[in-house]
């Protein structure tokens, strides 16, 4: 039976700083043909996202059938990893400005802080994204080489580079567009959930280095872990794009927002973030999740205790990561890190 390690990302604690993006980059993707890849990135929502238009690029399941998908383009949808003319701009005669040596057309954070709506009621939030290490991975099913597998010991989805031939069916099949084709190695690559770190008891770079303390890591069946409590017990953490049918193992605590203002500038009771935007991302259960969050915050405002809020606050950074496998019968084993 596959045990599954999973992640909860709290969108109320994500500050959009991209430290996770860069932690991942320096850990895995600043070399060997991966330079254009962001296995983990943060995008501003609503927006076209990264790769550009990924939400309209297909993939995922339609019942038992794979839905068609589209491959993102390197320059237009991912963005080329720009280099800059430092030497020309700074050490040569003339007044050439610092510029990318090739024009930038898109990037992982191109629509940063733009969002939607009209002043003063504009709205946006940050959505960190990585491979969801799905329980029903469309990428795996799409691979004609059977190069993609899910590890029994932790549920991490990996692409075997020795079997992969770079056909990219997986790229098209992933509804999150979180698999990247490496043109240098001519094979596909993606987030590996930092298994080499995990095997040494060190949490994922994106999670451990998150300065906003937004990420919890735990086994899905660990009843003392944040994943079980937030997903199963309190139901305030939800998968992204549940309609794709891949059963993601990365979950999100949906974002709250300050009230919008009416024509006179008076705060109203409506949510600033339109419900349909959130339902479109996280499905209809997002409404109950937001209500639950607001109710528990109200308890704290009234001076009452809330175990759920205490967990989201995360008093100890180290305790956000429960990597030790709990024994099925003995709950709450000690944590590492």
């Amino acid at each position, binding site marked *: 039976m596959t045990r599954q390690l999973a992640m909860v990302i709290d969108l109320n*604690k994500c*500050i959009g700083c991209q430290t996770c*993006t860069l932690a991942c*980059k*320096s*850990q*895995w993707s600043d*070399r060997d*043909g991966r330079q*254009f890849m962001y296995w983990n990135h943060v995008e501003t929502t609503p927006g076209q996202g990264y790769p550009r238009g990924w939400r309209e690029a297909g993939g995922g399941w339609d019942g038992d059938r794979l839905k068609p*998908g*589209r*491959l993102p383009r390197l320059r237009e949808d991912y*963005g080329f990893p*720009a*280099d*800059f003319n*430092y030497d020309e701009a*700074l*050490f*040569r*005669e003339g*007044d050439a*400005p*610092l510029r*990318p040596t090739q024009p930038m057309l898109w990037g*992982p*954070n191109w629509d*940063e*802080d*733009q969002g*939607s709506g009209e*002043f*003063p009621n*504009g*709205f*946006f939030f940050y959505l960190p994204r990585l491979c969801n290490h799905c329980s029903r991975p469309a990428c*795996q099913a*799409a*691979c*004609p080489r*059977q190069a993609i597998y899910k590890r029994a010991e932790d549920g991490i989805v*990996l692409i*075997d580079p020795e079997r992969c031939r770079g056909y990219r069916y997986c790229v*098209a099949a992933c509804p999150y567009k979180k698999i990247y084709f490496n*043109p*240098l190695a001519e094979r596909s690559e993606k987030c590996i959930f930092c*298994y*080499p770190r995990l095997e040494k008891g060190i949490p994922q770079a994106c999670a451990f*280095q998150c*300065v*906003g*303390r937004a990420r919890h890591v735990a086994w899905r069946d660990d009843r003392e872990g944040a994943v079980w409590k937030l997903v199963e017990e309190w139901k305030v953490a939800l998968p992204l794009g549940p309609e794709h049918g891949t059963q993601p193992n990365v979950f999100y605590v949906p974002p709250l927002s*300050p009230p919008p203002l009416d024509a006179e*500038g*008076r705060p109203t009771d409506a949510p600033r973030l339109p419900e349909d935007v959130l339902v479109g991302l996280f499905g209809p259960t997002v409404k109950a999740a937001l209500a639950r969050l607001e109710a528990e*915050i109200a308890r704290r*405002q009234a001076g009452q205790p809330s175990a759920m809020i205490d967990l989201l606050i*995360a*008093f100890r950074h180290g305790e956000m990561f429960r990597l030790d496998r709990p024994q099925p019968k003995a709950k709450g084993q000690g944590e590492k890190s």
Partner: protein
Amino acid sequence: MDRREFLTSTGLCGLGLAFGGPLTALAAHAAPTPSGARAWEHLYRREFATTRGDSQGFAFHCSNCQGNCAWRVFAKNGRVIREEQVAAYPPVNPRIPDANPRGCNKGIVHSKEMYQGDRLLNPLRRKGRRGAGAWERISWDEALRAIAQGTVEAMTRHGLGALMVYCGTGILSQGRRAGPLRLGSLLGAQRLYPASAVGDMFTGASLAYGLATVGHSLDAWFECDAILLWGINPLVTRMPDAHYLTEARYNGARIHAISPDYTPSAKAASQWLPVKPGTDAHLAMSLLHVLLRDGHVDEAFVREQTDLPFLVRLDTGDLLRHRDLRQGGKDDLYYAWDEASGKAAPMPGTPGHFKKTLRLGEIRPALGGRFEVKGANGKPIPVAPVLELVRAEAAKFPPEATAKVTGVHPAQLERMATDFAKARKAIINIGFSLHKYVSGTMTTWAAALACALTGHAGERGGLDTENNWSLDGIGPLSSPKPARFASGFLSEWLNGDMAMTMRRHYPEAPLKAAAGYDGTDIERHVRERLERGGSYYGKPRALVLFADNMFRRNKAEVQYREAVLKDLDLFVVVNHRMDSTALWADIVLPATSHYEAWDIRGELGYHRFCNVTVPPPGLARVGEARSEWEIGLGLAQAIAAEAARRNIEAIPDPDFLAQEGDKAAPVMRDFKRLVADYTMDGKLATDADVVAWLMTNVPQIAPWTPEDARKRGFVVLSPDAGFTSPLYANRPYNSFERNVYLRQPYKTMSGRQQFFIDHPVFKKQGWSVPTATNPLRPSTYPFAFYTPHTRWGVHSQWRANAQLLRLQRGEPYVWLNPATAKAKAVAEGDRLRVFNDTGEFRARAKLMPAVPPGAVVTDHAWEPFMFEGRTGKNAVVAGLMSLIELVDGWGHLTFDPNWDGNMLAHESSVDFEKVPS
């Protein structure tokens, strides 16, 4: 592999084929059973092991974000390959979230930044005219000799003050910064006050407390019931501490974000108050209006801790003093109306009172009413408590009326006022952008008053500009002899000839109407201040600049640069990278960067940890870089040799007297002993020696030793580090506990939190109590121009980092409200010319619904070299100063680290137009 290899090995045509287009799997294949052939998984394990390197050190990034975060640095074969937060700070207590894993998107790219193409590798000397961009590589010896010649020439020909040795805010640590400070101090060179040079003075706090930087360790946010974020965007600018805000909100705190645009922090708040740019003081006065209207006054606190009960003479507008009541009376003894005795009583704790405590004893000061006292000449003097005048002033700002000015609906203000007043603990955070408007001073003074009225101080919170720790014992290292310490904003304004752009951008009559003074008044006050002396030492003839991007940060960018360069005979820049200032230097010296030299930083009070940089063993320095300490030593040696060559043993410095017993003699600038003095007779030869010296000599670091730092990368400061309160080991730090609980007087003229200033300028302008001042931007151009701090740099540091630029758009852009853009037929990504009568710059348009109509905004500190013609966004900012901040030589408003002013960066207006791409 770098990007070039990536390109050449893949080939562009190949990329076109590999990416894009529809691709559908023909069938869903059965899930494969892993064949057991998982040996390949070792590939990534090996990669991971590689990124841990073969040696490890510790570092922090000692720049002007003040975040001060401990990082572990991994090196391989003498080269840094990665960094990761140490994430091992101990918790303060079980009910406060810990501080881990401090460290942001800038720190995490430094391992790339330090080897990037803008890194300075060798000493360079310009070929051709300044700024032409042609350089020749020279040896360190050659460079140091040339600099020594120029500096000794300037000192002997034009006087000691003609040399400026200035370390900017690129280095704010105690270790690396000590080199330039010590050298300048021994030579008697002038240096600017960095906080005012960059516009970071909190003069509103200075008025109230005699202290510019007051506040909390930011874990105190977590204990709050209400937090007001005023002109501050911590989710972007205080990343390592931002979690305390989001966690405080979860914990029940009501957060009110006041800013002209919908910032990421506003997004995380309970409500956002969209104040119109520069009108904050009206909102603050309206807050006072509501608090007073609704009786939210902690009378016991106000009576004892503030000057609000002090009596004001209604005939002259001055505070009532002892000398008003008795011939030959004291100037610094103030009075309240004692309800117990029915007469005016001298207030204990005021400087002239024999009781040096705030305890009132039997006195019960009146907080309202009008009274009469008998003057020294026997005539009656009408008096009233300060609070009476405050009430009258606040009464002018009902929420409904101010809404028209501020754009903030009364319902929002009332909600904020109620949350604030009812909170057990509340903090008002004042951001660094607020005092870049002229109204910042009054906004902050009024916010301090709001805290005072409601008793928010000590454990109950209060005003927070920025907390700093008090580290003793550094003086002998950084300031062994007196230096020419110059006002930052005034010196920059004069050196940059900014009167010119002030006069042009602000026509006299409208400025007078908006501000109550005009350019002529400013210039008159500047002249008076120069006559008084003490804060300006003339334009430098030789300038040795460490880690300061002077031509980036100054207003009226182009005019400033020309004015400064015009009179410089020698211009040296010391930095680890070529910045927009180094481009104009005569000689550029390559310094080590954040990982290559020992360093220590402990004075910054967002948290209680003192971080230490311990370079990874075996780390090779980049190019010929030297540490700032070594560069200072090299300069000392070269200057001593040059002086010896000219047979100069010492220059007496008439501006400073050294006292010995009852004799005083001019301080000697002694070249024969310069090297011995610099190194403390050989004890301090290297940056490692300096850090060890500090760890041994700063009592707040005890009992920790350099060995502890070598093991962990940080130490914890002792309770003595607190400035106005103890830094208790088990609690977040709060300000003013010594005043509130021990009743020690404040460092103000009145000895109390002060909300009445009877300086002649204040009286004349109607500023004696907090009031609203108006935006000053001229109507000549239609758009307000302001430049909030960025997510992508610490000012200009890391702003040109390739990793970070890939997460932006690769070149500068300005934020426009979509409707504003549409009215000018501007679309996303269009090239714009932003201009006014001060100058112009060009950048791309980015459409942001978060930005108010009527404003042109860009996140600040793009390098000018990132713009066409190397002219940056400060080219359109005129050189304006605030008259309030020019006041000097009066009580606690006397030039020192707690009283100086700011260039008003956000008071210019602009227009823009689309230009062809």
